[in-house]
């Protein structure tokens, strides 16, 4: 992981504001009157958008506002119901992605479109091979990749299998794919949602470099800080419509947030100082070896007290996931663990019998898992079924037969209190937006009244409004005296939510900082593995 020690000449070039663009050059993209409906859902309604060549153009909007749909239309992934697209001034019917690619458009999707068991090289040439035989394509791509890596700081090992790459590197592969196809216009859909701050910084350097080469970049993000930092222009979408396009230099995060949500949004977490009580979670010398024999946790010592939020900062892949899963009672099958876990003073078995998630719940642990769609919810289950997931054995839900009416009533209450929308407990989880899925999980885990709540990446890919709400709920739980262990790769989130911050690196705790006194630079250094306790 390359921290911020790279030469940053990109920053100097970032001054190329829109007014520097020569007017005789036609805009890179013009969208005129684009509409698209999915059955009854009007995802895009009469959208107009102009993106100038050689600029970075941001698009913001709440979950479901229609941003991805619009970009997918531009990339030929969907066909618009109405409207016209002009690329470089020329009208173009983009019937499929092949057309878009030929027109110089490349797209990095929110959910990567990589073949996980292929190498980087194979992923890059897929669909852009030179001929029927692979050997030639691979050889050329290898050379090309070396060049791109040099020109744009896009270092990845071409022979590595994608599955083995960190998310940040996977994203580089996606960008390489587009550049390999000689994209002039690069669309990135929520690229930083899964990145660590250093990774995001690196990405932005790359994007600036590309812009300075004359390429056009469209960037979708939920993070207004990023919009302010890197874009030249920004468009705001709400409920399928384009509500505004502004010059970034002449707007503010508050204005953007209000345009997006339609009301004022609190961008900062508002919380009283912590009143730490006795220790709830005590972890001593915790070690974990995964089934491949890799030591993932190398002696973790950690205490979380009642009434405080301890945030674990760290680049993803440094053992946070394993720590949460081990505490939650479901480490990867066939892992080996040693050390001690005490909750409320009582020791808990580490692994095997009596150490499954059900036992952990019985010990008073709640868990908002990192991957809400694969772990926290059953996507096909209705909201009311999901609302008891994990505590379905509880006697409250009936005797021999489950009392579904009680569960539904209870769920309706949770959805009301946690503002889960739409407020229909019979809807399957998959029909809720990501933010609302997360609210449902939080409702379930928080309302159980756990003495310890494990929280993993609570706001990944969630829009501003929902983030605000979820943060408030976590703080409220803390204020009732629960202990909270928060894992997040969002440094902003860690810093604004936690009372104490520990940094994990390579399966170890690098050190602990008080949330009030530390800063991003200090934490960033620790996250990059700087000496324990130093800085």
């Amino acid at each position, binding site marked *: 992981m390359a921290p911020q020690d790279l030469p940053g000449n990109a920053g100097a070039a970032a001054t190329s504001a829109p007014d520097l663009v020569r007017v005789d050059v036609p805009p890179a993209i013009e969208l005129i009157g684009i509409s698209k409906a999915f059955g009854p859902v009007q995802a895009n309604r009469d959208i107009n958008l102009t993106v100038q060549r050689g600029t970075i153009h941001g698009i913001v909007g709440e979950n479901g506002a229609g941003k*991805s*749909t619009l970009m*997918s239309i531009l*990339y*030929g*992934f*969907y066909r618009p119901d109405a409207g016209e697209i002009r690329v470089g001034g020329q009208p173009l019917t983009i019937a*499929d*992605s*092949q*057309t*878009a*690619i030929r027109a110089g458009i490349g*797209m990095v*999707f*929110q*959910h990567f*479109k*990589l*073949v*996980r*068991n*292929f190498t980087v090289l*194979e*992923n890059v*040439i*897929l*669909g*852009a*091979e030179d*001929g*029927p*035989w*692979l*050997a030639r*394509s691979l050889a050329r791509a290898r050379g090309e990749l070396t060049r791109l890596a040099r020109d744009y700081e896009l270092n990845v090992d071409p022979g590595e299998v994608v599955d083995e790459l960190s998310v940040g590197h996977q994203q580089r592969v996606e960008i390489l*794919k587009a550049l390999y196809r000689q994209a002039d216009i690069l669309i990135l*859909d929520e690229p930083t949602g899964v990145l660590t701050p250093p990774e995001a910084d690196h990405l932005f350097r790359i994007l600036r470099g590309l812009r300075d080469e004359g390429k056009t970049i469209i960037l979708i993000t939920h993070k207004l800080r990023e919009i302010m930092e890197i874009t030249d222009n920004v468009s705001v979408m709400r409920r399928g419509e384009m509500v505004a396009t502004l010059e970034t230099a002449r707007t503010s995060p508050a204005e953007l947030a209000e345009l997006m949500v339609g009301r004022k949004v609190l961008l900062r977490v508002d919380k009283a100082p912590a009143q730490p009580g006795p220790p709830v979670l005590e972890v001593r010398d915790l070690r974990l070896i995964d089934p491949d024999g890799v030591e993932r946790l190398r002696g973790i010592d950690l205490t979380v007290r009642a009434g405080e939020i301890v945030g674990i900062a760290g680049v993803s892949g440094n053992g946070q996931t394993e720590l949460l899963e081990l505490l939650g009672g479901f480490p990867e099958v066939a892992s080996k663990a040693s050390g001690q876990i005490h909750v409320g003073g009582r020791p808990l078995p580490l692994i095997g019998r009596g150490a499954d998630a059900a036992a952990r719940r019985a010990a008073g642990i709640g868990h908002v898992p990192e991957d809400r769609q694969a772990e926290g919810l059953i996507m096909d289950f209705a909201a009311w079924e999901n609302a008891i997931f994990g505590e379905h054995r509880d006697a409250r839900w009936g005797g021999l037969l489950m009392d579904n009416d009680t569960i539904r009533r209870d769920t309706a209450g949770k959805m009301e209190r946690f503002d889960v929308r739409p407020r229909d407990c019979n809807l399957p989880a998959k029909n809720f937006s990501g933010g609302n899925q997360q609210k449902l999980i939080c409702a379930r885990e928080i309302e159980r009244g756990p003495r310890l709540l494990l929280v993993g990446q609570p706001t990944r890919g969630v829009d501003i409004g929902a983030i605000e709400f979820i943060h408030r709920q976590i703080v409220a739980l803390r204020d009732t005296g629960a202990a909270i262990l928060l894992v997040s790769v969002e440094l902003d989130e860690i810093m604004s939510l936690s009372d104490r911050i520990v940094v994990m690196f390579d399966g170890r705790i690098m050190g602990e900082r008080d949330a009030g006194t530390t800063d991003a630079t200090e934490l960033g250094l620790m996250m990059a593995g700087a000496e324990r306790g130093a800085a």
Partner: protein
Amino acid sequence: MNYSIALEVLDSAVRLMTPLLLACLAGLYSERSGVFDIGLEGKMLMAAFTSASVAYVTGNVWLGLAAGIGGAMAMALVHGLASITFRGNQLISGVAINFLASGLTVLLGQKWFGLGGRSPALEGGARFSPVTLPGADALAGVPIFGPLYREVISGHTPLVYVAFLAVPLTWWLLYRTRFGLRLRAVGENPASVDTAGVSVVRLRYGAVAIAGLLCGLAGAYLATGLSAGFVKEMTAGRGFIALAALIFAKWRPWPALGATFLFALLEALANRYPEISLGPLTIPSMFMNTLPYILTVIILAGFVGRAIPPRAGGQPYVKER
């Protein structure tokens, strides 16, 4: 067991494995592209029927072979329509194809030949005859290899060699060509192919058609190579064994060769030793006949880890974000 018996058993195994191997490779293409195929049995059966019928009527086995391929491809097309175009349930479609072939072959056979679903026996040019590989006789004197070459390697019908060549060919196609790259990709993550501007539908139809072709070869081999005509239900579950071999081989071509060989070898051994006496105890024929299946279970339980299928397998591709 001396060398010549071993050779005979091997020879038999080669014959028995050929239809399994062809069907297994058929499944490999289809499933590698993300289309699960439990209709191998039905496609083979249909091919056996059409190849025998046309070979009988024309007296020409090559026309029969073409018809066999055509028959299996028709079934494959149905499967493609159901599972690719109409995004239906691939398992149900496969089950339906097995039933369809089982019924149609007898129905049509009865209508044409009036023999209760059997085709008339094929003779002469309507059957495949064995080919003697060059030097088979000349090398017969060479110790060890000579007899092996003559007895086991030479003297099979052409489709056997086609089947064996299909293994390296498949490997090469899969791992060394553009088509193979895309095929493997579409079975793992169709969206990656789609966003790269390549048609998922066309790729999958291609794979399913190849599966049809290979099942056609397998069926034709059964009816016009190994036996001389069609008998109802003559595939006798080989499609399912091929499927088992495919999982066993973890969807890879060379292991597919090994897996089908193992199944065939076990069957050949059971044929050669219909009863085994273990002192006072004689294992009855019923259990010798079942030995291949029992051993399969034991091998699976003991030596083969989890088989992870192509990730996108079984799910119709729907565009999503």
